[in-house]
């Protein structure tokens, strides 16, 4: 998947970084500061050997007549201190890297969880309007980019920055003029980094885009590979692919050329800077120029040699930082997208009417109970007087003048009024796009109506808490979605506390039992990749069993049996009829045989109800339904 790397202003980038760091520190209030401390501590220790080296060389210079005993003790003493510092540094190193492994992985875990949790609360509209592959890439590409940034780039940058700072002070301590030369060199390096690093990230972004395009194309073609074969369209698709492939090659080649050049360039600028320092140092030494330094020491070989090493270290660190630039840019782009998903506004739910288990007393009054009973009631608190009323759940759904549009100015439903009495079977018939599925989307509030009212057992559905509303509705969709797990797990998805027996009973009721028994492992057969090892019809049967086990008072069947052949459907139908006794059912089907025995058939056209009545009434009326029903004969 392509990562979208938008152009960010500096302020926005640092804002993202600050937010990310805040989050990391809040996840690890102890570990994260300790890790930072260890980095700083370590980089200071790593800069110090230059000081020792300077001292040791000074001692060597001062020694005379090959007499080790005169300076040996002092040198060994200094080396001893160095060893202690090194041991400290190593200990810090070990601890730091272990901490970083824990911090990185757990930060990623928490971010993943936060994204996922937030995603569960997003309105259906988000999923309908965003490319699923794109949503997915938050969890793959963006998280991966972030991993590299947290575990490598940020610590490296912090370490190098501290090193550079400490070195800078040591250098000033030794010699200001030489430091000035180094700083000049570094300024030059920065110019190159900006120029080449900028070019490199520009093309890396382009490369990601080209890769995304190529991926999109390949996915589309390969999804329809059989169509390509049937139409002998192979040559053309190869031609199109080559075009995109060539573009990707250009971009990635340029990006890599820039990135590869940066290393040798900075390395050799470092070398040249080294030479310059040597020459300038040599000139100073020979000309006996007075040194300007915090130490106050005059120029000597014991200053120039360590200085040369520090120059190398200094430029080496800058080189290191430059290698992290791309990772940071990609990481921040990923961070931005991750935060965007985390910040997506939740599905709004102002509902306060709850669904509770109820007991009906002898006098007909309904009260709440915490036990699991087979009867349910709506608990309706009234804010005006603080009283609570209980309305038994019956499954009476009414719509009054409902208007709806997905996009502004494109009304999908206009003035829909209908009622479904408890226990009635209401069918929607009409051409694709007439608005059948939309009506069901409104009843369970996947989308909210623009105008009008929907009442459920007399309660405006906007007042009902969404979770409770949906719990009272069972839906079987045309596109079945099963989850990785056993057949049994998938049926139990309808009611998590259902026993195996209850799940099997539901499967029998929905006509799924027969084929499940014939699967290699029966109910324990693992379903993978949305049940790709089953036929579409078998998947539909399982999804019907899933809703049967949930046993909801209102059911919506949206083309639930469209892929089941008519003979099997007849079997399912019998089971469904058993299941539907006493339930309100909404059925959408294009097969008229499926809807014929409904109490009410509603014919929709372009978002409006044009006919309603029972099968017989509609046939008698000789209207649209009649036309649909007899269409095949009419032509003869």
């Amino acid at each position, binding site marked *: 998947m392509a990562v979208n790397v938008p152009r960010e202003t500096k302020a926005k980038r640092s804002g993202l970084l600050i937010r990310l760091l805040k989050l990391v520190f809040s996840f690890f209030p102890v570990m994260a500061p300790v890790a930072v401390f260890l980095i700083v501590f370590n980089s200071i220790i790593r800069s110090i050997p230059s000081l020792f080296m300077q001292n040791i*060389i000074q001692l*060597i210079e001062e020694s005379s007549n090959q007499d080790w005993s005169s*300076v040996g003790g002092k*040198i*060994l003493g200094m080396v001893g201190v*160095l060893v202690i510092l090194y041991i400290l540094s190593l200990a810090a190193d*070990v601890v730091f*890297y272990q901490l*970083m492994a*824990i911090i*990185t*992985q757990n930060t*990623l*875990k928490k971010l993943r969880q936060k994204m*996922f949790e937030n995603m*569960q609360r997003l309105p259906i509209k988000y999923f309908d309007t965003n490319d699923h592959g794109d949503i*997915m890439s938050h969890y793959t590409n963006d998280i991966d980019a972030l991993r590299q940034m947290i575990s490598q780039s940020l610590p490296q940058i912090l370490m190098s920055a501290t090193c550079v700072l400490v070195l800078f002070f040591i250098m000033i301590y030794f010699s200001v003029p030489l430091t000035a030369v180094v700083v000049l060199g570094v300024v030059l390096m920065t110019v190159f980094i900006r120029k080449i690093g900028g070019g490199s990230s520009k093309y890396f972004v382009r490369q990601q885009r080209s890769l995304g395009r*190529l991926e999109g194309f*390949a*996915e589309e073609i390969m999804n329809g590979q059989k169509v390509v074969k*049937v139409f002998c369209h*192979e040559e053309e698709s190869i031609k199109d692919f080559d075009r995109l492939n060539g573009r*990707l090659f250009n971009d*990635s*080649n340029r990006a*890599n050329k820039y990135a590869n*050049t940066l290393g040798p*360039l900075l390395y050799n600028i470092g*070398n*040249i800077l080294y*030479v*310059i320092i*040597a020459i300038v140092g*040599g000139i100073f030494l*020979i000309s006996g120029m007075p040194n300007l330094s915090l130490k106050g020491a005059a120029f000597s*070989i014991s200053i120039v*040699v360590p200085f*040369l*090493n520090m120059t190398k270290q200094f430029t080496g660190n800058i080189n290191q930082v430059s290698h992290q630039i791309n990772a940071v840019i990609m990481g921040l782009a990923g961070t931005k997208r991750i935060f965007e998903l985390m910040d997506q506004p939740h599905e709004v739910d102002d509902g306060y009417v709850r669904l509770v288990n109820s007991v009906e007393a002898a006098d007909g009054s309904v009260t709440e109970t915490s036990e699991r009973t087979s009867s349910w009631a709506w608990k309706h608190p009234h804010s005006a007087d603080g009283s609570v009323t209980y309305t038994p759940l019956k499954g009476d759904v009414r719509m009054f003048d409902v208007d709806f549009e997905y996009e502004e100015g494109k009304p999908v439903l206009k003035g829909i009024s209908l009622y479904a009495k408890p226990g009635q079977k209401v069918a929607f018939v009409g*051409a*694709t796009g007439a608005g059948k599925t939309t009506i069901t989307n409104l009843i*369970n509030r996947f989308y909210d109506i623009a105008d009008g009212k929907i009442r459920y057992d007399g309660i405006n559905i906007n007042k009902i808490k969404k*979770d409770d509303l*949906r719990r009272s509705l069972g839906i079987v*969709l045309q596109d079945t979605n099963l*989850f*990785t797990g056993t057949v049994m797990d998938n049926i139990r998805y309808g009611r998590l506390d259902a026993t195996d027996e209850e799940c099997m009973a539901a499967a029998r009721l929905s006509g799924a039992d027969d084929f499940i028994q014939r699967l290699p492992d029966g109910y324990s057969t693992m379903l993978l*990749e949305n049940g790709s090892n089953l036929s579409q019809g078998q998947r539909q049967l399982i999804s019907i069993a*899933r809703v049967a086990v949930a046993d909801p008072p209102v059911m919506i069947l949206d083309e639930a049996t469209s892929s089941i052949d008519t*003979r*099997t459907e*007849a079997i399912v139908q019998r089971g469904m009829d058993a299941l539907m006794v006493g339930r309100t059912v909404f059925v959408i089907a294009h097969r008229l045989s499926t809807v014929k025995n409904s109490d009410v058939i509603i014919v929709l056209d372009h978002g409006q109800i044009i006919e309603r009545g029972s099968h017989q009434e509609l046939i008698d009326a000789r209207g649209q339904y009649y*036309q*649909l029903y*007899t*269409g*095949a004969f*009419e*032509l*003869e």
Partner: protein
Amino acid sequence: MLKTLAKSIREYKKPALLTPVFVIIEVILDCIIPFIIAELVNVIKDGGDLNDILKSGAVLAVMAVLSLIFGICAAHTCSDAACGFAKNLRADMFARIQSFSFENIDRFTTSSLVTRLTTDVTYIQDAYMMIIRTAIRSPLMLIFAFIMAFIMGGSMAWIFVFVVPVLGGGLFLIIKKAMPRFRSVFKKYDRLNASIQENIKGIRVVKSFVREDYENKKFGAAASDIARDFTIAERIVSLDAPLMQFCLYAVMVLNLTVGSYMIVTTGGTRFDVGQLSAFLTYGFMMLNSLMMLSMIFVMITLADESCKRVCEVLREEPTLSSPESPLYEVKDGSVEFRGVSFKYSKKAKRNALEHIELKIRSGETIGIIGGTGSSKSSLVQLIPRLYDVTEGSVFVGGEDVRSYDLDTLRNSVAVVLQKNLLFSGTIKENLRWGNKEASDEELIAACKMACADEFIDSFPDGYDTHIEQGGANVSGGQKQRLCIARALLKKPKIIIFDDSTSAVDTKTDAKIRAALKRYIPETTKIIIAQRTASVEDADRIIVMENGRISAIGSHEQLLGSSEIYRGIYISQNKSSVDESLAENMVKEGAD
């Protein structure tokens, strides 16, 4: 495996060979530089005059510039080589996929192919770049630095003989311990991502069953599990940086002690201050190249998996292809099955089709009906040779389908697939898949036949309306009608509809069939349908059950003779005898 991949290097062989040459020169220069620096330091130390300093300085500067030039050359050639190799790999894979037969296609999922084409190739590209550049640079650097250290420091260089194996051995152990863990975590990671995908796709189910919290818990557990495993693996790998530091420190300390001892005791004759600092540089070079080597090793092992996956595609032989000297003309639209048995894969236990004997005359209209899994689609897919028969033969126009050129055959036998797709592009572009040269008039004529003309005209952009990927912005019925029009544009001798009007309303369905009858009477029409209404007017109807032909005959004949057919008909048309009577009345009323 490498041989298979190497075939894709082709025109990028030159930069791939040049890169190591540049790299070798760069490494030699880089290794000499500290040597000259040591000279320079000594010149400075000994208070040599400015000329000497400038001389060594100039040599150094020239070498740095040379190293830079070769470095940049290597940077460019290795990028050319790696990106070019990746480009060819992608092109080869895609071309190979295009040559796949249906059987090949069935073996791979689209998403796995896409991953191979993108992520896997990127891994290989990076590893390849590493190999031709860094994998050559690092060992060379190690060796040269070692040689230089020996030339310069003599016995001092023995320090490295001890330290280098410590680092090498340590890194080896770390990698050996960590790699299997990483591999298993990556597998889990793939599964986690698959379950996220599942959740996104099935969000309507999640929400309608109010399972958000359940899903959160499930995901949380899986994510924690992975974080735990990842942390363990990463913690092992995290030991390598401290190990590297340890070796570096050891070199520093040993150098400083032994070095200063040698300088002092020999009065700087065998070893001097300049060499001491150069020596440290060599030490750093060696250790650093070892570190790089270990990183390369990890990258190569990771890329190894990608190589395997890419090779799987490149080595997949198309299971069917055109014969040596093929026929380029299909005489007529007759079809014959002779003793045909078929199974989807050699491993399958059961045949999908069993002993099929069938003759279809050119221009006949054939309906095929049967329950789910009765192999209706399998039967028709043998006609345009989308699969090859396991036994027996299929004849089209009097010739075995295996004797035709594949394009010729498939252009004469059009199939409207059950799982049909439109591609992103305008309606016109999509229709022209059927015939590149079709004129606008021909497009309109085909759409009229498929009853698509009407709704296309109702779109503001008409035939130039942009279709989104998979045809997401047209309804199911509209999509099917466009697919039919697309197939009609081929002007085929045989046209097969594999349940291709299931989302079209009955009236339009009948209209399309009537148009076919009227406008392309000579074309053989084979219609697979769920509804008996869609096949009632066919010349003959084939009833399929369990991979066999259970009955053949006209609607009326089958109503009498085939129990299955009658069963299907009744389930669709009459729920009870009473209703059937009522329905007959309705029928009469309509007539």
